């Protein structure tokens, strides 16, 4: 046993002082990624390169596995599987698509308790349909590099707070500018049901009834101009007060001018912009589904902590469910019936699941979240599909989340099962360009690895 271990065991007797570490003498186990290539501010190590990785376990992303290698040319995967040899021998390490988070305000703030760093919540009003996260997203935000280090290569960037919080975007965790980082914008308009939709912003509803009423009023008042029922409320239509044949809507003398806000709602009505519906309590999930169905919207559910109670309804809606974090256990009233096997139960009911972690600083633990879901019954392949972007492709056309011929070479190498909390990553590429796994944290580690 090493001397320092013995002294640890004897520290209560005061022996700790005897081993006070002399400056400059400390050795430490060195995570291998810290020796990795330092990237530019944009996170990239170099330009698009052609490369081959071989002798790997390949998690395709859809839940299936292969063994062999991957060959990349011009930023695309050109060969995959047992026939690929040469290049870098990974010695049995795992190649997978990287993790893609289903929703957090990453890039929108640095430090929770420092308001000066916050751009995640446009709380000037409870309804801000024209606020876009791409106007606030900082591609150089520190949590991005920290997440990338654990193989999280992108995610859905969400605005926080309010009833209608603003427009989300899918981002990749590389690039110097927002344009470089953006994958899809807008990815959807974020709308919060339940207590999340009530708040202190001007014009905020104060109760769940207010949330539902206000959202119906907004949709009724902002129908697109080609809808003959533009002046008829949904309620009138339902109750038969509106007769389509007699409904007289005079064509305007000149095309009306619409506000940006109205145009955003028109896009929602026309299914040109998705709605991302935050709901955790079971009845809030049902309210969200009903609202989206009534107006025939293209919806995705977000949160779903109590989704297992209404799993069949979610499955029948056909809406993708962004669920998680799995570790949100019932600390509050909106999540009282949350369960660890929520994802397993939703999956079993046939729901298309996308996993999210939540906060930007711990986004790197997306794999651990997936592991926890596996511990409680989610099949391993389903967990990979939920955490690595594959299932997100069913809701958005994303160039990520699947290792197959012709796909963009966005992938990571993991020194073991990527879902296991003990596992480290070794390398990663986004669109064929290697990205650094160094971060602000590895710089601090290097600075204090030896005391001076």
């Amino acid at each position, binding site marked *: 046993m090493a001397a*320092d271990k013995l002294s*640890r065991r004897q520290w209560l007797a005061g022996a*700790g002082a005897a*081993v006070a*570490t002399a400056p400059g003498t*400390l050795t430490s186990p060195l995570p291998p990624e810290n020796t990795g290539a330092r990237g530019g501010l944009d996170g990239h190590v170099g330009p698009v390169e052609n490369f081959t990785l071989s002798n790997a376990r390949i998690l395709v992303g859809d839940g299936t596995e292969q063994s062999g290698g991957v060959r990349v040319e011009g930023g695309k995967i050109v060969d995959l599987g047992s026939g690929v040899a040469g290049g870098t021998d990974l010695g049995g390490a795992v190649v997978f698509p990287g993790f893609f988070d289903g929703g957090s305000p990453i890039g929108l703030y640095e430090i929770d308790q420092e308001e000066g760093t916050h751009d995640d919540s446009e709380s000037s009003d409870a309804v801000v349909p024209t606020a876009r996260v791409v106007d606030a997203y900082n591609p150089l935000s520190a949590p991005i590099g920290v997440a990338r280090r654990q193989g999280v290569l992108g995610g859905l960037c969400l605005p926080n707070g309010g009833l209608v919080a603003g427009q989300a975007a899918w981002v990749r965790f590389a690039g110097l500018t927002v344009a470089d980082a953006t994958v899809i914008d807008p990815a959807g308009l974020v709308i919060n049901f339940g207590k999340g939709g009530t708040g202190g912003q001007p014009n905020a509803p104060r109760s769940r009834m207010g949330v539902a009423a206000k959202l119906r009023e907004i949709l009724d008042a902002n129908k697109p101009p080609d809808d003959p029922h533009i002046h008829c409320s949904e309620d009138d239509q339902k109750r038969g007060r509106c007769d389509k044949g007699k409904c007289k809507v005079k064509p305007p003398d000149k095309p009306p001018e619409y506000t940006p806000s109205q145009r955003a709602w028109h896009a929602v009505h026309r299914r040109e912009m998705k709605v991302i519906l935050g709901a955790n309590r079971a009845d809030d999930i049902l309210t969200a589904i009903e609202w989206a169905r009534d107006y025939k919207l293209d919806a995705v559910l977000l949160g779903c902590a109590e989704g297992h109670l209404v799993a069949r309804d979610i499955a029948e809606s056909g809406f993708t469910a962004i669920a998680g974090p799995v570790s949100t256990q019932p600390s509050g009233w909106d999540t*009282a019936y949350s369960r660890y096997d929520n994802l397993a139960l939703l999956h079993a009911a046939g729901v298309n699941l996308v996993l999210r972690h939540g906060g930007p600083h711990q986004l790197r633990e997306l794999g651990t979240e997936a592991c926890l879901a596996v511990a409680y019954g989610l099949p391993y392949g389903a967990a990979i599909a939920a955490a690595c972007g594959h299932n997100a492709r069913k809701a958005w056309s994303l160039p990520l989340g699947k290792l197959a011929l012709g796909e963009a070479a966005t992938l990571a190498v993991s020194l073991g099962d990527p879902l296991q*909390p*003990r596992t480290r990553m070794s390398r990663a590429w986004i669109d064929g360009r290697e990205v650094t796994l160094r971060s602000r944290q590895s710089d601090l580690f290097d600075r204090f690895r030896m005391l001076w």
Partner: protein
Amino acid sequence: MPGATFALVHATLLTISGPALPDSTLVVKDGKIAQVGGTVPGGMEVIDAKGGYVTPGLIDLHSHMGVYPWPDGRAHGDGNEMSTPFTARVWAGDSFDPEDPAIPRARAGGITTIQVLPGSGNIVGGRAAVLKLRPSRTIGPMVFAEAPPAIKMACGENPKRVYADKTDDDQVMSRMGEFAMIRDKFTEARDYRVARAGKAPPDWDETLEVLADVIDDKVRVNLHCYRSHDIAGWYRVADEFGFRIVTIHHALETYKVRDLLAAHGTGIATWPDWWGFKLESWDGIPEGPALVSNAGVPVATHSDSASHIQRFNIEAAKMVRYGMTEADALESITLDPARLLGVDKWVGSLDVGKQADLVLWDKNPLDGTALAQKTWIEGSVVYDRATEGVPSGRR
């Protein structure tokens, strides 16, 4: 618990104090560990734990369960007596609600001992309650009787935030103000300590009594502190007044001054990877615990969260990712916290004579899919996954 006598057989025993023992026997008699390894004595209930792993009950020395019980709500916020910056007279046990639904969830994660601390709004927040997580309607049967008294102190952003808006002598707006306040109070306590030993004892002052006991090393100091310069400042105060800081909690910048901790015989209680929630935590790095551990400092993983405490084994597994050995990571949730609480004579490892606080896992607990199957406190089953599943988290 008299009468709790049985043998666990064919399990891998992660003894913590020694090497792992595959396919081995552990014998519990009258609530204590009576035998580690060897053959099963006759006439004893035998539990076949083939394929499973046994660890000591897990210990979390930073919990606010019971003082901020679920569900969150204004009426439940009993962890911070922020009426004045020095409230050594209060005891977390007086706020503790044994009906907190988080507690059975923690047992289901293999937790058997917790230290319930007051919050960090005050410079001296109050006394800790060290508890065994026995199912109980009242706190009495939960108290870890052998545990020495302990106190919570704090510094930096939290007291500064709480007391910046006061308009009386309690107001403090800067770190220098905090340290001036701390010195003033310990000067009072030092004078009180001299006086109470004299012929004309002063009027009883509970707060000064406790702080005088701190100087006498009768109360273990748990210091909430993040930044390296705050830690150096506290050592100046501790050295000046002659008290010992036993554990620095959160401790995210201790890796920068780990030599100071080793020299002062201080341990840390920390997370594997939390950072960024406040400026004090901005320089937290996940290799920090491994660096501090390698300097000869006891490192306990703590939760500070009723959610993370349910998956404490995963928190330890993350420590391994960032450079800690598996043995040290397991020690960080068992024997090291026991040492820092001063209860390692009774719990924290699988050794003959220790209280039989045990967890049976379906696989190695550092595997992220491992689940505690059974938890015992002093030989009594306090959790059984086969019959309880995951306990309800609602009230």
